[in-house]
């Protein structure tokens, strides 16, 4: 039995972080197709193009130039076509305020960027698994809320 590739988007301004994220994904068993963007605007512009294949999940860094993660999140949740895409926040901040605000604005997962690579791999894997379950099993997407 063959599972289709999961389409994953990542908006992250830090080149090293993008590279590390990509490394982590490739090391996973789950097959993914990753698209990365240098800031929120780039990703949003791409998402809004009509022929874009809707991703299974979007990872958003909060602190980005031009358009930050929070702005992207809000924009997505206001767009009829994009509001259903699960959003995982991927940030250094562990401030309760940031966490609460992103959840309220509609984020599904909040990830504190781990400080070692194996932890990063585990986190990403867990998020993808969760997302898959929420997409395919009879789970209430309204309650798709995790902090990892």
């Amino acid at each position, binding site marked *: 039995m063959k599972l289709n590739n999961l389409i994953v988007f990542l908006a992250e301004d830090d080149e090293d972080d993008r590279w590390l994220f990509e490394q982590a994904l490739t090391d996973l068993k789950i097959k993914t197709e990753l698209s990365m963007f240098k800031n929120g605007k780039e990703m949003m512009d791409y998402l809004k193009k009509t022929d874009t294949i809707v991703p299974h999940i979007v990872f958003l860094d909060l602190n980005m130039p031009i358009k930050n993660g929070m702005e992207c999140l809000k924009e997505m949740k206001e767009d009829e076509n994009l509001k259903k895409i699960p959003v995982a926040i991927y940030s250094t901040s562990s401030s309760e305020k940031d966490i609460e605000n992103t959840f309220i604005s509609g984020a599904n997962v909040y990830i504190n960027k781990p400080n070692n690579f194996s932890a990063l791999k585990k986190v990403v894997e867990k998020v993808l698994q969760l997302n898959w379950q929420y997409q*395919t099993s009879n789970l209430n997407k309204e*309650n798709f809320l*995790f*902090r990892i």
Partner: protein
Amino acid sequence: MKIYVTFNLDITCNAILEEQLNKLDVQYAINGAREIVFTKKLTEQQQLGLTTSLKKYGVEVIDNQKTELIQRIKDTINEMLKDDEANLYKVSSYLSDKLDYSYTYLSNLFSEGTYTSIENFVILKKVDYVKELIATTDLSLTEIAFRLKYSSVAHLSGQFKKITGLTPTVFQKIIEKRKAFKSNKA
């Protein structure tokens, strides 16, 4: 003369799928993951008809036996969670009893098809149920813990926190604020 076209395969495929599915006159939904969900079970005739008509467009209905089994595992787990008595069993024995497959087989099949283990799924499902109760009812944590056969509120809170990274209280607060936020915007 020459023209060039670009096309989005997803849209093309979706159009074909919708065209054929509409013929069946049943309710359905197409998931982004190329999954078609029917609200009612199809008759064998309908199923056969759909498979042959889609084949013309190169769209193949994936072997549904394994998918079906995975779905049955999920359904059985759902049943088990809602059924007070069933809760007394271990998941493994309950599933193998109900589905007449060895648990190892079911477990492997499940992991293959869902990226996750049955155990994880059960916990996730249970937590989802807790979330549901917290979000939509006025039940206290003690009542929820009792209803879902948790030994204590602490156990419930502990598992909830471990799985979701949030305490039930924080979760409840966020859900409430999110609702308020949404209704404010509307």
